[in-house]
């Protein structure tokens, strides 16, 4: 009998769930996909809080964007593609203006749906690199850099330290990566660069199930003695790798990571991790007007979901950057359409006309927070300058000037990848979306 009651209750809940009132028409609905659960939650929590707090601050301080409140709703994906798709289907009906999947797997699953549902997708510096080409992927945006840009900057840096690209000849570069699409993406570029400049590449894959069990990879490192190490890690893989590197006695100054390693993931390795390098495109910390506002309007009012200790951490700031892009896209869309409540199609146009110049960064209270970024119809990425940060034992310290990616190598790869994507997906729609020219 209990089953009957359970099922009746379930059905009732279901009906209520389906009959949920849509968000009010005078609001802009921005769903935030986040993952505060699961094996990758360590990276996901500060990002989610950064995203949430910045937009909440806009609501509290300015009453939204252009006078329209943002209806924020978090959807928990657990970094799982299935739940991500469920989230997407759940928010789809509420007319979201933009979706940020925060997982390469979810992004790939959503790419074909974006054009059909007219919902732009912002995969900030992750996802499909080829999506940088707006002519092929009008609905997908991945600013400010692709993984290939990141890798090329690292190799450039290494070459600079060695004293020129010709000095790379005969050197060995080790590449330790999460054995998933994300970690495998840079390999073709790395191999091509190896051919161009005559260095050797050693690959050390780490399976997701073995993230916290890396001793054999580091034994391999010890045997091969690579001159430099590059890491494409995520979640618990990163602290484990740093700890193992310290244990093996690897030269930390020669150990580069892609931009996803946060402070919390290095701290555990102790003082030995000093010198570890990490890419970034924005500064860390809280020394900006907007952050003061977040503190005043969100944290002090108890509207944040996170703990104050993560305020200003690298990944928190990354979340803020992501939200700045969303807010700016909505802002530009409002300017373009002269409408207050914008739709997904408008925000797509807003994204394409995004122009975060240094004056604009100043206007939004983030003077000097990040490099300027301008997108266009053809370029959905920006391929902005990156810089290297170094771990000084307690925090990340900027350790290089701005370095641009090797566009001459990356661009053909992007074009080839986009062409391949279209070839494999027969019936991939040609771009029909008109292109705005605003000045």
């Amino acid at each position: 009998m209990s089953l009957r009651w359970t099922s009746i209750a379930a059905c009732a809940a279901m009906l209520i769930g389906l009959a949920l009132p849509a968000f009010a028409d005078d609001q802009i609905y921005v769903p935030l996909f986040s993952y505060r659960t699961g094996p990758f939650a360590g990276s996901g929590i500060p990002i989610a809080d950064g995203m949430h707090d910045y937009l909440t601050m806009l609501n509290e301080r300015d009453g939204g964007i252009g006078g329209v409140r943002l209806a924020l709703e978090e959807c928990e994906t657990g970094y799982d593609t299935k739940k991500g798709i469920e989230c997407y289907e759940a928010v789809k009906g509420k007319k979201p203006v933009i979706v940020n999947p925060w997982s390469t797997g979810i992004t790939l699953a959503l790419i074909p749906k974006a054009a059909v549902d007219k919902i732009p997708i912002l995969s900030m510096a992750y996802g499909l690199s080829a999506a940088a080409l707006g002519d092929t992927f009008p609905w997908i945006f991945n600013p400010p850099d692709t993984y290939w840009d990141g890798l090329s900057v690292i190799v450039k840096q290494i070459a600079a330290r060695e004293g020129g690209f010709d000095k790379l000849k005969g050197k060995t570069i080790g590449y330790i990566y999460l054995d998933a699409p994300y970690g495998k993406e840079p390999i073709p570029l790395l191999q091509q660069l190896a051919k161009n400049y005559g260095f050797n590449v050693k690959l050390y894959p780490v399976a997701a199930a073995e993230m916290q069990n890396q001793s054999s990879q580091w034994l391999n490192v010890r045997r091969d003695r690579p001159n430099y190490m590059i890491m494409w890690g995520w979640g618990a893989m990163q602290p484990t790798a740093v700890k193992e590197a310290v244990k093996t006695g690897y030269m930390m100054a020669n150990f580069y990571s892609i931009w996803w390693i946060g402070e919390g993931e290095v701290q555990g390795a102790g003082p030995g991790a000093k010198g570890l390098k990490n890419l970034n495109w924005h500064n860390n910390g809280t020394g900006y007007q907007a952050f003061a506002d977040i503190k005043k309007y969100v944290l002090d009012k108890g509207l944040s979901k996170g703990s104050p200790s993560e305020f200003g951490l690298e990944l928190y700031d990354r979340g803020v950057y992501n939200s700045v892009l969303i807010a700016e896209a909505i802002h530009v869309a409002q300017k373009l359409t002269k409408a207050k409540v914008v739709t997904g199609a408008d925000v797509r146009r807003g994204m394409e006309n995004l122009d975060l110049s240094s004056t604009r960064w100043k206007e939004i209270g983030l003077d000097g927070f990040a490099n300027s970024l301008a997108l266009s119809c053809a370029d959905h990425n920006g391929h902005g300058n990156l810089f290297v940060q170094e771990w000084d034992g307690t925090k990340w310290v900027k350790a290089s000037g701005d370095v641009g990616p090797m566009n001459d190598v990356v661009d053909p790869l992007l074009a080839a990848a986009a062409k391949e994507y279209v070839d494999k997906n027969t019936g991939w729609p040609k771009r029909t979306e008109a292109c705005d020219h605003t000045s």
Partner: protein
Amino acid sequence: MLYREVGQYHTNYRADMRIFPILQDRIGILVILAIAFLGVPLIGGSFFLDVVATPFLIYALAAIGLNLLTGYTGLLSLGTGGFMGIGAYTCYKLTTWFPGVDIVVWILAGGLAAAAVGALFGLPSLRIKGFYLLVATLAAQFFLQWAFERIPWLYNNNISGTIEVPTRTLFGLPITGATATPVTRYEVALCIVVALTWLASNLVHGRIGRSWMAVRDMDIAAELIGIKLLPTKLLSFAISSYLCGVAGAMLVFLWYGSAEPTVFSIDLSFTILFMVIIGGLGSLLGAFLGAALIHVLPIVLRGVPPALGLNIASSTVEHLNLMIVGALIILFLVAEPFGLARLWQTGKQKLRVWPFPY
């Protein structure tokens, strides 16, 4: 009263042995099919179809597959995720080579490769039993997942390492890819699942099914009465993997739209095993009930707090969700260890004698 077989006489063995010997059951199944084919697509929105209905069908098919192996033949397996992956990757390769051939053919053909691989990994079942076999099938799971990640040929050397579903049409109507409507994909999935369930049902009611059950109940005794263990067990592995493989191909082509190797991880194997056990071992109906409960329950639970107007953080909901599902699993096992299918049978018995207690 309502459900009474009095007066329904069977005058030959054929009528007595049919799957639904009672008239009410036959009417019931027709009503369910009518609702499934016509009612659901008419009433359900795209959220219901894409998130609830189609995945439910796919899970149910995989659960039937595993149930043939675990419930009917008594062989525990945790390789389901891997076998589903084989089906998906095979289908993907086939449709790349022969884009002209109808995709449904390739979805069904994808299962054949899974059947072959399943039979191969089923070989140890001749020597080892019980939990030892369970762990041994994990070898298949981990090895296959490693292969999906490490063999670029399988995903056509895609840079992203994933398989992406191209748009394929049937009679001019797109049934895979982003342009296919939820209704089309649902109907295609429903057709495949109904056909294969019918096939499975005939298998388990026939000679093959009986030999499987003999092996399950005691394999030494089965051997003594002349059932050859090797072909019986391997056939069970093959057919089970076939159904799982088809479910895997459907999962990618009719639901996800793209897949990375982690989709076919061990978690998927666990989920399917859950469905089989909660639904009821050795029952096809159980596979459907188990799939419904395990798949739909978290979705419903996630919808409860907003529906009640409670403002709980989505992550907290997820935590509570896990706890509730975990507790419910234990509760169900305590209350009805033979699964939902047994509950259904008890209910049916009650209906049969209603309004009298017995």
